[in-house]
């Protein structure tokens, strides 16, 4: 028996004195399909949602405050923990923002850019597979969960071969990447791409595309019209699922996306099923991009980090042999780089949508203010406009199809 604590049962999910047919239901924060720690207060009339009030902040870790107390390189591993399904895309968003602030985004070597793009796209596949797995599990398709996790593990193996971590990669640094690809990695990648391409067609789509239950639960559920999508500043697939032809990789290209040949799938169905099709198609496009990147990798020079001694440490070999590089490295590690005074807002297309970093620098080694614009934050907000009118059973489908990750929502 435990010592008594002060917590008393609360009845905020039940309103006894109501005369009407309404009922208030508390959903979360511990709920298997709340994708983390979402809490929803749902007002129901029968089984229909009348009002939904998302309550977030259960994973608020104070990352923006941490950033103000950390030098730029120190903060990079923290970004891993934001969208922990696809860590590298957060690393990249932050690294690119700092590079823009320092004005060294053009000095990142080509091989680093190629490896970064590879990691970003591999992360996109991992993220979409994870989305499919959890979404299908929520809707009731257990086998898709197992299949999707199988391919996801293979992709994690590749990432692990590269940087040593499964989940929290920190594989993209400010100014480049720390490591070259290990031997035989591209061969494994090509094998993986073949496998996952088959899996998308033979497993996921074969199981779900014409599945009656899947279609009944997803079609015409969670309809985000164009106006709502614009007003809520949605991004990524939530935006493209509503008919906007907008992908930052195409419209405001960064890295080497302008050289690559890929398509942006768009649908004007606006419902969950349309978005599911987009996820499948985006995975195919990522596979296409990765296939183009392998030959590009072999035609690039071997330099990995930008050569900007003022901000970026020299390569290890140089640090070990040259005194001045060692001093520079020491200063950069202990005091941190001092970027110019100014502010930047840099957005990248993460698997979830537009991931933006606003950095306000006052010339100190610590950012004066770092605001992280995460797609999931607004995709959670949209629930309060989106859920009313749907049945209680659709709530899980809609939450699933928004693809929110709570590390990102609450930061």
């Amino acid at each position, binding site marked *: 028996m435990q010592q008594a604590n002060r917590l008393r049962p609360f009845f905020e999910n039940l309103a006894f004195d109501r005369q009407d047919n309404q009922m208030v239901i508390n959903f979360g924060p511990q709920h298997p399909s709340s994708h983390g720690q979402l809490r929803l207060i749902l007002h129901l009339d029968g089984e229909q949602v009348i009002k939904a009030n998302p309550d977030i902040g259960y994973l608020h870790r*104070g990352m923006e405050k941490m950033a103000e107390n950390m030098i730029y390189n120190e903060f990079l591993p923290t970004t891993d923990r934001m969208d922990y399904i696809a860590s590298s895309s957060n690393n990249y968003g932050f690294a690119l923002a700092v590079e823009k602030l320092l004005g060294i985004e053009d000095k990142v070597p080509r091989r680093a850019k190629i490896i970064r793009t590879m990691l970003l796209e591999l992360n996109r596949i991992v993220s979409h597979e994870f989305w499919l797995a959890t979404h299908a599990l929520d809707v009731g398709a257990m086998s898709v969960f197992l299949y999707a996790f199988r391919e996801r593990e293979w992709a994690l193996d590749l990432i692990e071969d590269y940087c040593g971590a499964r989940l929290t990669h920190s594989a993209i640094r400010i100014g480049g990447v720390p490591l070259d690809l290990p031997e035989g990695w591209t061969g494994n990648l090509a094998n993986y791409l073949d496998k996952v391409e088959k899996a998308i067609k033979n497993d996921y789509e074969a199981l779900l595309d014409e599945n009656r239950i899947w279609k009944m639960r997803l079609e015409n559920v969670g309809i985000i019209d164009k106006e*709502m999508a614009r007003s809520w*500043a949605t991004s990524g697939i939530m935006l493209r699922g509503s008919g906007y032809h907008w992908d930052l990789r195409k419209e405001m290209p960064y890295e080497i996306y302008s050289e690559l040949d890929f398509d942006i799938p768009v649908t004007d169905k606006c419902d969950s099923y349309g978005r599911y099709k987009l996820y499948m198609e985006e995975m195919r496009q990522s596979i296409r991009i990765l296939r183009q990147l392998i030959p590009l990798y072999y035609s690039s020079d071997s330099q990995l980090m930008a050569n900007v001694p003022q901000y970026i440490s020299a390569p290890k070999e140089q640090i070990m042999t040259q005194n001045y590089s060692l001093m520079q490295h020491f200063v950069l590690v202990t005091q*941190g780089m001092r970027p110019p005074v100014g502010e*930047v807002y840099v*957005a990248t297309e993460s698997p979830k949508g537009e991931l*933006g970093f606003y950095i306000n620098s006052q010339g*100190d080694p610590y950012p004066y203010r770092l605001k992280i614009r995460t797609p999931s934050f*607004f995709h959670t907000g949209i629930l309060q406009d989106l859920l009313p009118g749907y049945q209680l059973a659709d709530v899980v489908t809609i939450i699933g199809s928004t693809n929110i990750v709570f590390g990102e929502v609450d930061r």
Partner: protein
Amino acid sequence: MSMREYKPKDNVQARAYYTDRFYVAPQLSKLSPNSDEIYNLDVIKLKENFEILDAYIQKDELVIYINSFDNLKILKFLRDDLTYGFLMEMSAVDFLAKRDGFEIFYEMLSQVKRKRIRVKTFLKKGLTIETVENLFRSANFAEREMFDMFGIQVNNHSFLKRIMMPDDWHGNPLLKTYPLQGDESAQWYEVDKIFGKDAREIIGPEIRDSARVDRYDTERFSRLGHEVSKGTDIYKSEPSNTAVQFQEKGGVFLIKNLNKPQKILTEKERRDR
């Protein structure tokens, strides 16, 4: 006699411990808006209708400064006439120490022009700002977050409530005066809430030192091979070897002690198994 180290109270965030006296931080260049065709037209149109305090291009993005009471009108103009239809982000920057106020920024995107624009305004301490929630629903959450983190009051917001922190939280975490590890009420928050204030003494303060190791702490750590029951006080003498005990040693009905005396294996024997 030693002096206490001076610590500024208006900004308790981490500071560089060494700064060159002669170091002058370089500035990011600010270009005039007429260096970009699209932005130039936008600024001209804006200046025709509203008072624009400053306008420049920094890092390929137009920044305009406006009066804080104009925000609703200007954002509406940007949305309807200049096609900046998306309010991607908005928040504030704490300048209370230097300028006694906040800088609020609205980060907007035009998909038609493929351009971003940052609308900035300065808000004196104690003043309030009008909500733009009716123009952009995304401001609903963003303004709530700003209110939660900075305590900036937003007028006419439909549901201005804390969003990240619990409702009974004290203080606004992103203010420069708020320490990273929280004030006193923050540090005891969960203890007060769950067990009551009386439990503070028993549970003790938070251990914020990540390098702290207490090998005598039997509350938090089990000691493999040297188990003692939880909470045993071993500060005085540490058991070097703990005998493995079974209940039947004392005698269980019908069962004799079937266990052979346990032998403690040497490292080599363990490997051989």
